[in-house]
């Protein structure tokens, strides 16, 4: 009997995971299920009242999707604000990546540029939202002063009252906060590419353009996909900037109303419609889950599969050894 001397350590795996699991169950899983439940009820108002499940449980969802113009507007706004900041963001990040990783160009001061271009990402988004709204103030904000000084405008412009201008500024802020982040991730990705590929391209006489489009870009596929999906899930939650950039939040005329701002407004302002907000959250949850699933499907990496195979082989070997004893 060999068993006697050995201690079974496996139980520590469970013990060490207990805090995580407990906190997850209480503070994440239960609230999510509770939110889903609220979505099927008539819960509203500041004063707690008995809550009933609606006769038609899906009524909140139905009303949101079919009858609520602001909710649909908030979904399309979220998408518009995301796509108009993501495309320029990834384009500029790729361009800078191409420049910074090009050995022949040998750009100096890269460290400093990275630090400065990434900087807006770390500053509180609420501060940035209010800062930009003050910079674009009417009639005498710094931007209006600048336009006046340069002779670009005859009269002060009410930037925040025009739908597309307001949207454009919000999406610019998002772009400005995130392109540095994307750039650093892409540069790290290029650093991870096997140098032999670049050497081979150089020997074959590939130009800078050719190397970038034929070698670098295809190798960056996984990382760009990762950036795309995380940016989509992040963009879906866009809250701080649209919430604080314009008062009332979401203005002018719902042009910058994102789904998160909508949810917050439903639940914590006016009629305190927790049920509608919860139903909207669940719709958002489903979209995020679908995006995440898509990412895992597209990115299921070979290493994971190999690891599993190895584990299986190990188990088999262990079993064989046990039988042999």
């Amino acid at each position, binding site marked *: 009997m060999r068993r006697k001397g050995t201690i079974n350590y496996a139980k*520590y*795996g*469970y013990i*060490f995971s207990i*805090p*995580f*699991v407990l906190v*997850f169950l209480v*503070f994440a899983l239960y609230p*999510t299920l*509770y*939110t889903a439940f*609220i979505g099927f009820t008539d819960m509203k108002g500041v004063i707690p009242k008995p809550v009933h499940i609606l006769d038609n449980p899906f009524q909140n969802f139905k009303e949101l999707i079919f009858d609520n113009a602001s909710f649909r507007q908030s979904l399309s706004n979220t998408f518009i604000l995301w796509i108009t900041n993501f495309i320029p963001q990834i384009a500029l990040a790729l361009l800078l990546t191409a*420049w910074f990783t090009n050995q022949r*160009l040998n*750009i100096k001061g890269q460290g*400093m540029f*990275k630090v*400065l*271009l*990434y*900087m*807006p990402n*770390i*500053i*509180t988004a*609420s*501060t*940035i939202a*209010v*800062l930009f709204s*003050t910079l674009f*103030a009417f009639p*005498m904000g710094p931007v209006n002063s600048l336009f006046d*000084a340069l002779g670009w405008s005859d009269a002060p412009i009410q930037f925040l009252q025009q739908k597309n201008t307001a949207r454009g500024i919000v999406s610019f802020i998002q772009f400005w906060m995130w392109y540095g*982040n994307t750039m*650093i*991730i892409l540069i*790290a*990705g290029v*650093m991870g590419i096997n140098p032999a590929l670049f050497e081979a391209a150089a020997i074959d006489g590939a130009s800078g353009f050719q190397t970038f489009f034929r070698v670098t870009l295809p190798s960056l596929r996984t990382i760009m996909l*990762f*950036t795309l999906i*995380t940016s989509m899930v992040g963009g*879906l939650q866009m809250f*701080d900037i649209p919430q*604080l950039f314009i*008062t009332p939040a979401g203005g002018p005329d719902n042009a910058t109303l994102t789904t998160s701002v909508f*949810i*917050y407004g439903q*639940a914590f302002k006016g009629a305190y419609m*927790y049920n509608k907000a919860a139903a909207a*959250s669940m719709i*958002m*949850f489903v979209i*995020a889950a679908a*995006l*995440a699933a898509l*990412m*895992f499907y597209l990115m299921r990496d070979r290493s994971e599969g190999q690891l599993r195979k190895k584990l299986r082989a190990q188990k088999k070997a262990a079993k064989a050894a046990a039988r042999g004893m």
Partner: protein
Amino acid sequence: MANSVTAAKATRGINKTIIYIVCIGLAVLSILPFWIMFVNATRSTAEIQSGLSLLPSTHLKTNWDVLTSKSFDPLKGFLNSFIISASSTALSVYFSALTAYGLVVYNWKWRQAFFTFILCVMLIPTQASAIGFYKFMYQLHLNNSFLPLILPAIAAPAMVFFMRQYLLSTLSLEIVEASRIDGSGEFATFNRIILPLMTPALATQAIFAFVASWNNLFMPLILLTDKSKYTLPIMVSLLRGDIYKTEFGSIYMGLALTALPLFVIYFLLSRYIIAGVALGGVKE
């Protein structure tokens, strides 16, 4: 032949000049809004209204007085934000390391399932559960308490994921075996031997956790209604209100105060932060 080489060199020179101009332009774009913010924090409202300036003025004290004479208490906000961010960072870093260690070192039946589960919940948006979370905390009378903003940090899936990768690539199980032979308990091994070994990963993750918590607006905005509990991001939203409508100098002052700690952290730790961002993307 020689001509074409010099021509190529010349084009590259021009290209490089353009690249430097674009990069410097982008750097200026990153700095300028914050520069204006800090400069305007020292200028009087009249000066701000009369035009743009890139040089500081002398009204710092006046702006501070106006700012603090109303409901804005930056020191209180700073303290609240600090309590929440520091405690949640400490908890998330410690417990994520513990969970990751459990995932890497021990061979238990549900290990793979648990890891897959962590991957799955990594991308769930907080807003998805916010209403239920708020109602639940309200029933427990924990709204206006910092606990709901601190305790959930114990379960940080993305951080567990990162720490697991780190342990897989750096930890040799022989260390664990050796300490077992020396009679160290499993928990003591983790605390005394493994945690110090993980310092680089802990530090990187701590910076990001701290900044994320410090910048968080959504959850505190929902949970904290008592003014004395406001965090800095909520206070920033006060600057948008009617009370400071025409006091531009003090609005900039308030903004500058909320951003200042982050600038200090960033310029002290930028090297590690940039390295950490780069690491986050390379998950292979």
